[in-house]
C-alpha cells in the first residue's frame, strides 16, 4: 500500500467517535422563531449594525458591516424584523453585541440563480468574497478576502483545501464533501483564479474513503489552468492544523510565527470553499452552515444545515431534547472546542459542531503533579515543551515561558490528551500567553 501523507513529528490517535453521524445526510433544520446574530463573528473589528430596531428586512440583507479595520459584512439569514440590538451570550467571550431577528414566516424564500464567474477578474471575485461575508469557517474565523490577498513579497504557488477533519465526532466537512463535491471543487477553482495560480490539493484523512472517492470524481477532469488533486492523509490528530497539513502535502515547513504564505501556500477549509462558491456563483452571502450535532447527550445526533444565529435551545428542541447524564456542552470539537454553560448561545459562522457529552464521554479526573514522563514532548507536533510551561506557570513564573515555545503553540491539546497526570496543559499555555513577553 502506498504510504499515506502525514506530518512526521508528534500527534496522537484519539478515538474517532464519528460513526454516530458520518452516515447521516445533511438535514435542513427548520428556521426557529428568533435568531441571535453576534456582530463580531470573525477575527478583527466587530460589525456595526446597518439596520435599526423594528426595521423589516429581507433574506440575505446586509445588517452589519465593518467600516474601519479588518472584517466582513454580516447578513440576515431570513426575512424578518429587527427585534433588538443588544447583547447575546457568546461561547467564548461570555457576552457580545448582537442583533436579535424575529423571523417573518410569510416571506418567500429567495431563489438563487447560477451566474457565470469565469470572465470576472480577480479583483471582482475578491470583492464578491468580501461582500459575501466569507471568513474561515473551519474554526479560525479569519476574513477570507485578506487571506486570498497574500503579501507581495511572498508569492503563493499552491492552494490547499483542508478536508482532514481530524477532530473526533465532527462529520460536517465529511458530509459536505460528499454532498457538495462539485461546489467545493468549483470554489477551489475560484480561489485559484483569485490567487492567479494553478495548483490545488485537497487533503482528506483516509477514514473518509467515500468522500475521497466523491471528491476525486468531482475534481476530474483536470484542466491545464486549474489542477485539483485529492491527497489522502493518514488519520492522525492534528492533521488538519494548517502547518501540519502543509508539511504533510507539500513537505514545506512554515517558519515559527509566520503565515503559510511564507512558504507559498494558502490553506482554506473545504466548507469555506463551498461558501466561496455560494458567494461568487450564486451571490448568496454566508448565512447558513453545516454543523455536526453529536454526543450521547442529545436525543438524535445529526448533520444539520442551520441558519447563523440559531440558538442552541432550538437545536436541542429539534433534535429530541437533552438526554440524562449530559455533563458538558462543547462548541466545536472535543480537542479544541469551548465548553458552554447556556443553551442561549447562538451558532456563529465558525461553529463546526455542537457536542452534547455525557459523563462517560469526557474526562473529569482531577489533575496531579507532573511526573516528567515526557509524553507531552512526544505528542507535541510543534516540538515544544508543555511540561516545562506547565511547571513554570504553576510556580507563578509565566513570564519565563517564552523559550519553551508558548507562542508557537496553537493549542491542539495533544499534550493534555496524553498527560497521565491529567494536567490542564492547554490552560497553562493560555495563561502563559497572557503574561509572557512575545518575541519580536
Amino acid at each position, binding site marked *: 500500500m502506498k504510504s499515506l501523507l502525514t506530518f512526521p*513529528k508528534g500527534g*496522537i490517535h*484519539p*478515538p474517532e467517535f464519528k460513526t454516530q453521524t458520518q452516515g447521516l445526510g445533511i438535514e435542513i433544520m427548520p428556521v426557529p422563531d428568533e435568531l441571535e446574530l453576534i456582530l463580531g463573528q470573525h477575527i478583527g473589528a466587530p460589525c456595526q449594525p446597518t439596520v435599526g430596531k423594528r426595521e423589516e428586512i429581507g433574506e440575505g440583507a446586509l445588517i452589519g458591516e465593518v467600516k474601519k479595520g479588518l472584517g466582513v459584512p454580516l447578513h440576515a439569514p431570513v426575512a424578518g424584523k429587527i427585534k433588538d440590538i443588544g447583547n447575546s451570550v457568546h461561547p467564548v467571550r461570555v457576552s457580545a453585541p448582537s442583533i436579535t431577528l424575529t423571523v417573518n414566516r410569510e416571506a418567500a424564500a429567495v431563489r438563487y440563480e447560477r451566474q457565470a464567474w469565469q470572465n470576472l477578474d480577480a479583483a471582482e471575485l475578491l470583492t464578491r468574497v468580501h461582500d459575501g461575508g466569507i471568513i474561515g469557517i473551519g474554526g479560525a474565523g479569519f476574513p477570507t478576502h485578506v487571506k486570498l490577498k497574500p503579501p507581495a513579497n511572498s508569492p503563493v504557488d499552491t492552494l490547499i483545501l483542508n478536508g482532514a477533519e481530524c477532530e473526533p465526532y465532527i462529520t460536517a466537512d465529511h458530509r459536505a464533501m460528499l454532498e457538495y463535491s462539485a461546489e467545493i471543487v468549483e470554489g477551489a477553482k475560484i480561489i485559484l483564479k483569485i490567487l492567479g495560480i494553478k495548483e490545488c490539493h485537497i487533503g482528506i484523512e483516509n477514514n473518509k474513503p467515500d468522500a475521497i472517492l466523491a471528491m476525486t470524481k468531482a475534481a476530474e477532469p483536470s484542466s491545464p489552468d486549474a489542477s485539483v488533486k485529492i491527497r489522502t492523509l493518514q488519520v492522525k490528530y492534528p492533521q488538519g492544523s494548517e502547518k501540519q497539513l502543509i*508539511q504533510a502535502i507539500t513537505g514545506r*515547513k*512554515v*517558519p*515559527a*510565527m*509566520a503565515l503559510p504564505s511564507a512558504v507559498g501556500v494558502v490553506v482554506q477549509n473545504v466548507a469555506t470553499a463551498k461558501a466561496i462558491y455560494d458567494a461568487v456563483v450564486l451571490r448568496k452571502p454566508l448565512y447558513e452552515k453545516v454543523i455536526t450535532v453529536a454526543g450521547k447527550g442529545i436525543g438524535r445526533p445529526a448533520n444539520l444545515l442551520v441558519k447563523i444565529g440559531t440558538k442552541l*435551545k432550538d437545536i*436541542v*428542541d429539534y433534535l429530541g431534547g*437533552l438526554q*440524562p*447524564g*449530559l*455533563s*458538558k*456542552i*462543547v462548541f*466545536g470539537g*472535543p480537542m*479544541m472546542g*469551548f*465548553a458552554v*454553560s447556556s*443553551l442561549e448561545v447562538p451558532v456563529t459562522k465558525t461553529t463546526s459542531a455542537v*457536542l452534547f*457529552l455525557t459523563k462517560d464521554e*469526557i*474526562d*473529569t*479526573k482531577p489533575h*496531579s*503533579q507532573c*511526573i*516528567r*514522563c*515526557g509524553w507531552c*514532548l512526544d505528542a507535541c*507536533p*510543534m*516540538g*515544544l515543551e508543555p511540561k516545562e510551561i506547565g511547571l513554570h506557570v504553576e510556580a507563578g513564573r509565566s513570564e519565563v515561558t517564552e523559550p519553551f*515555545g508558548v507562542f508557537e503553540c496553537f493549542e491542539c*491539546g495533544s499534550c*493534555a*490528551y*496524553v*498527560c*497521565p*497526570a*491529567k494536567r*490542564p496543559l*492547554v*490552560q497553562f499555555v*493560555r495563561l502563559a500567553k497572557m503574561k509572557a513577553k512575545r*518575541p519580536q
Partner: protein
Amino acid sequence: MSKQQELDDQSAAPAGLWKVSTSPHLKSSESVEKIMWTVVACLAPPLILSVFVFGIQTLLITAVSVISCVAVEWLSQKALGRPVTIKDGSAVLTGMLLAFVIPPGVSPLLPILAAVFAIYIGKHLLGGIGYNFFNPALLGRAFLLASFPVAMTSAWLPPVKNLAIFSFLNRSIDAVSTATPLAVMKEKGMVAFTEIFGSGTDLYTSFFFGWRPGCIGETSGFLLVLGGLYLLYRGYITWHIPVSLLGTIGVLSWIFGGQGYMTGDPLLSLLSGGAILGAFYMATDYVTSPSNKTAKIVFAIGIGALTVLIRLKGGYPEGICYAILLMNPLSTVLDGWFKPKRFAPPLGGAK
C-alpha cells in the same frame, strides 16, 4: 408546560449544571496509577521466583518494605498538609524496588528505616512526586549501605536447592553470609570466581535465570527483561535508557574489564549485579531521568560509564546504584541542553 420549563426539566437531570473547562475535553485512558501499578505488576514475577530461590524471607522483606513505604507516604502527606496519594502506586513501587536492592537476609528494621529516609526526606521534603531529584528506592539503599555497611554487604542468602522454600522457617534466622558474584570477583579475583560460580554457558544460564546469591532484583535477569520488554511494548518506557545503559556497561567492561584491553566479559558484566534492574526499572524512573530522547541517551551512557568505573576501580563491588544517584540530579540539566527539535525555526533563522 412552557417550552422553557420543559427544557429546564430536561436539563435538570442529573444535576442541572454542566461542566465548563478548557479544551481538550477528551483525554487518554492512561494515568499515573495505571503506569505505577503496571510496573509493580512487572516486578511480581521476579519476586515470586526469588521466593523459590532464597526462601520465603524475600516475600517478608518485600512486604515490610512496601507497607512501610506506603505508611511513610501517608504520614508525610498528612504531616505536610498535602493530598494523600497512596493509591497512585508510586509508594508501592518504591517499596518493591527498595526490597529488590537490599540483601534479603537483613533485619526487617532496615527497610523500615530506609522507607523513612527515601519517602519522607528523599521525596516529600523535596516537594513530593515529580519534584524528587533522586530515585527514592536507591536513596534508601544508599542510606542503608552507609548506616549498616556490614549487614548490607553480608546478609546474602545462598540459593536454596531442591526448591525447599520453607526451609527458612525451620532454621533459626542465621542469614548464611555468602558473597555476591561481583564481590567475589572484586576481592578474590577471577579464578576464585570461576571456582565458586562456574564458567561458560552454565554460568550465564544460572545467572540469567537467577540461581546465585544476591538481591531479589539481581536474581532473574530473564524475568526482569521480560517485564522490561512489556513496559517497552506498552510505551511506558522507551528503548533509549535501557539500550544505551546496558550497551555502555557491556562495551566498557569488554574494553577495560579483563587482564588486558578488549578481554573483558561483556555478557557477564550485564548479567551480574543490578545492571538489568537498573537499566529497565531504576534509571527509567520518569521523575529522576530526563524527558528528551537525546538527553536520555546521554544520561544512560553516563550511568553506564560510572557503573563500570565503580565496579573496576571503586571501593564497592557494584556501582550502578551510585551511578544512577550521581546522574539523577543532572536530568534537568541534560533536558535543558538537549531540547526537542522545534517544528521550524522562525524566519531569518533561529535566535
